[in-house]
C-alpha cells in the first residue's frame, strides 16, 4: 500500500504548476506579437508573391520563374518537415536570408533576392520565421529547377557568391533623417524593389551603376526607379508618393502588370509610417536619365506618317470613347497624354496593356477600379500603329514603334 504523499510535496507541485502557467502566459503574448509582426513583414516582403503558385496553397511554392538561365521553381516554405522548411531552426532561416545558404549548407540561387534580404535585421527575420512556422504545413515537393548549362550546377554558386555577393546590414546614414533610413531599409532590404527594377549583368548579379536599366519580369518591363520619366517618384511629394504606393493609383495613372499584383498582395498593407518612409527614400533617389535596354528600330518619316494615320483611325474607333479625342482620359480611363507608361522609350508595357487589358489593383483607396478591355485581336501592325499614334500625339514625343519591336 502506498504511503500518502506528504502535503508539502503536493503543494510544491501545485506552486510549480502555477508558476509555469504564469510564466507561459506572457511568453505566449510575446510570441503572438512576434508572429503578428512577422505576418506584416512577410507581406511587405511579398514572400507569397513567389512562394505561392497560381491557385496553389499559400507558401507551398511551385511558381515557375523564367530567367535568362532557365526556369526556377520556387520552393515550399511552409513548416512541412519533409518538403518545406519545418526542420529549419531560426538560425538556419537567418543564414538563408542573410548569407544565401540553405539549412543543408548548400548555396542558394540569387533568384531568391537574398542579396537584398541580407540587409534585413535579425529580429525582423526571426519574426518572419515565427510567422512562417505558424502557417498550415503543406506536403508538396517541387520539381527540380530546369536550368541551362552550366547554371544547373549548384556548387558553382559558391564561386558566384564569392565574386558578387557581400552579406551584411547597412549602417544608418546619420546625415539623413529617420524616415529616409527606414525607407532605404524597406526598399533595398525586405521590399527587394531592385530585384525587378534593376537589370542584372554577368551571371545574374545586380547592376550597380546608378543609371542601370530596369529588367523584365513575367513579360513586363520593371522600369528603373532612378528615372523620373520612367518609374521614378522624384517628382512627387512624399505624401503623394506614399499614397501611390498604398493605393496603386494616382489621378491619371495606375500601377499595372506585375506591379498591380505587388500592390494587391503587399504594398496596400503598408503601415502609413512605412509607406511614408519608402516614399521619403524613393522621392530622394538621385535622378538619372536611363536608356532603354531595347533598341527601337528607326522609322523613315514616310513610315511614321503611315503608322500615325493608321493608328489615328484605330484610336478613334476603339480608344477615344474612354481615353478621349484629346488623350486626357475620363473619370475611369487614365490620360494617355503625358502618361509615363506610354511615353517611356520601352514600349512593351503599353503594348501588353492594350493586348491584355486588365484592372488596377483593388485597394482601400481604390476599391472599385475600372478595367481596360483586352484588344487581343489587333494584329502586330495595328498594335504598333496605335502605339505610335499615342506615343506621338497630344504633346507626347516618344519614337514610333515597329511591329518587329513588339515580337516576344
Amino acid at each position, binding site marked *: 500500500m502506498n504511503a500518502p504523499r506528504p502535503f508539502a510535496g503536493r503543494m510544491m507541485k501545485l506552486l510549480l504548476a502555477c508558476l509555469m502557467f504564469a510564466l507561459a502566459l506572457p511568453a505566449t503574448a510575446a510570441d503572438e506579437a512576434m508572429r503578428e509582426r512577422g505576418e506584416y513583414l512577410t507581406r511587405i516582403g511579398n514572400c507569397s508573391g513567389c512562394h505561392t503558385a*497560381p*491557385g496553389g496553397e499559400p507558401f507551398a511554392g511551385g511558381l515557375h520563374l523564367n530567367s535568362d538561365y532557365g526556369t526556377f521553381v520556387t520552393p515550399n516554405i511552409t513548416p512541412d518537415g519533409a518538403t518545406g522548411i519545418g526542420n529549419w531552426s531560426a538560425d538556419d532561416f537567418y543564414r538563408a536570408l542573410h548569407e544565401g545558404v540553405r539549412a543543408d549548407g548548400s548555396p542558394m540561387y540569387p533568384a531568391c533576392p537574398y542579396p537584398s534580404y541580407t540587409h534585413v535585421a535579425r529580429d525582423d527575420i526571426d519574426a518572419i520565421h515565427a510567422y512562417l512556422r505558424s502557417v498550415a504545413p503543406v506536403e508538396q515537393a517541387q520539381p527540380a529547377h530546369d536550368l541551362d548549362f552550366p547554371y544547373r550546377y549548384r556548387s558553382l554558386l559558391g564561386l558566384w557568391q564569392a565574386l558578387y555577393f557581400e552579406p551584411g546590414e547597412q549602417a544608418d546614414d546619420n546625415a539623413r533623417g529617420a524616415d529616409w533610413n527606414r525607407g532605404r531599409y524597406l526598399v533595398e532590404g525586405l521590399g527587394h524593389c531592385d530585384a525587378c527594377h534593376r537589370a542584372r549583368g554577368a551571371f545574374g548579379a545586380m547592376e550597380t551603376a546608378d543609371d542601370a536599366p530596369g529588367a523584365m519580369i513575367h513579360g513586363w518591363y520593371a522600369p528603373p526607379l532612378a528615372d523620373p520619366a520612367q518609374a521614378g517618384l522624384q517628382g512627387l511629394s512624399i505624401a503623394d508618393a506614399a499614397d501611390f504606393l498604398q493605393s496603386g493609383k494616382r489621378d491619371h495613372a495606375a500601377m499595372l502588370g506585375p506591379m*498591380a*499584383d505587388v*500592390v*494587391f*498582395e503587399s504594398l496596400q498593407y503598408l503601415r502609413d509610417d512605412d509607406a511614408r518612409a519608402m516614399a521619403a527614400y524613393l522621392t530622394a533617389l538621385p535622378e538619372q536619365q536611363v536608356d532603354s535596354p531595347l533598341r527601337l528600330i528607326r522609322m523613315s518619316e514616310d513610315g511614321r506618317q503611315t503608322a500615325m494615320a493608321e493608328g489615328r483611325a484605330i484610336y478613334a474607333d476603339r480608344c477615344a470613347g*474612354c481615353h478621349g479625342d484629346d488623350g486626357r482620359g*475620363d*473619370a*475611369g480611363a487614365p490620360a494617355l497624354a503625358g502618361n509615363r507608361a506610354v511615353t517611356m522609350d520601352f514600349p512593351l508595357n503599353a503594348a501588353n496593356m492594350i493586348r*491584355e*487589358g*486588365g*484592372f*488596377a*489593383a*483593388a485597394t482601400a483607396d481604390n*476599391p*472599385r*477600379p*475600372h*478595367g*481596360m*478591355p*483586352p484588344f*487581343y485581336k489587333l494584329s502586330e501592325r495595328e498594335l504598333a500603329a496605335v502605339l505610335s499614334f499615342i506615343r506621338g500625339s497630344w504633346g507626347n514625343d516618344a519614337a514610333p514603334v515597329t511591329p518587329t519591336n513588339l515580337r516576344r
Partner: protein
Amino acid sequence: MTRYAYTPRTAGYVAIIALVLLLPLGAAAEPARPSMKDRVAACSACHGPQGIELEDGYVPRIHGKPAGYLYNQLVNYQDYRRRNTSMNHMVAHLSHAYLFEIAQYFADQHTPYPPAAAAPPEPLAERGRQLARKGDKAAGIPACDACHGERLTGVQPNTPGLVGLPRQYIMAQLGAWQVGTRHAAAPDCMADIASRLKGRDVEAVAAWLAAQPTPADTRPAAEPIDAPPMTCGSVPQPATP
C-alpha cells in the same frame, strides 16, 4: 382684383421655393460619378449585352445569371479552379467584395437573348433532348432541368441557366470537368455527371441546349428545387464575400 402684397414674408417663401428648385440643379452640376457600366467595360468587351452568335461563338452569356453563380465563378477564376488566361488575368487583383458587386451588376441585366442555334441532326437531337429532359438513369445521369430549372434559366441563388449559351462553350465546360480543369465546390456533381457522359453525349446535349428557343420568362427560378437528384457543394453556399 386681388393684388399680392410683396412682404418680407413672401420674399422668404420665394427664397425657399427658389432654393428647393435649385437643389436638383446643384446636384446635377456635380461631376457624374463613374457608373458600374463604365467600370466593367473590360468585361462587356467580350460578354456583350445580347450574348453572342450561338452557332460559332464561344464566350458565354453572363447577363441575368444568378449573382451567386457569377460570384462563385469569378472567385474560381481568381483561385485557378477554372482556367482561362484572360479571365484569370482580369480578376487577379480584385477584392471579393468588388467581385460580388460585379456579379450582382451582371445578374441584374436582363437584356434580350440572341437567336437560338439551328437544331442538330437526328439522332443527336433526340439524345440531347433525352439527357436534358429525362437524364439517363442507367448511366446515373440526372436530367439537366432537374437542377437548372424547368425553363433551363437557372435557379437562385447559385445555379446557372443553360439557355442562350454557345454550343462550343457548353462542350468546353463539360470537357473541362472531364479532364479536371474546371472545379466547383465539393461535392462537385458536375464533375461526376461529366465523367458519366459517353460517346457523343457531350456534343448532343450541347447542341440541343444551344438550339432551344428563349423562354418567355428568362429569369432564374426564385424557389429552390424541391428534391434535387444530387447534393452539390456549390448550390447552398451563401453567395456573399
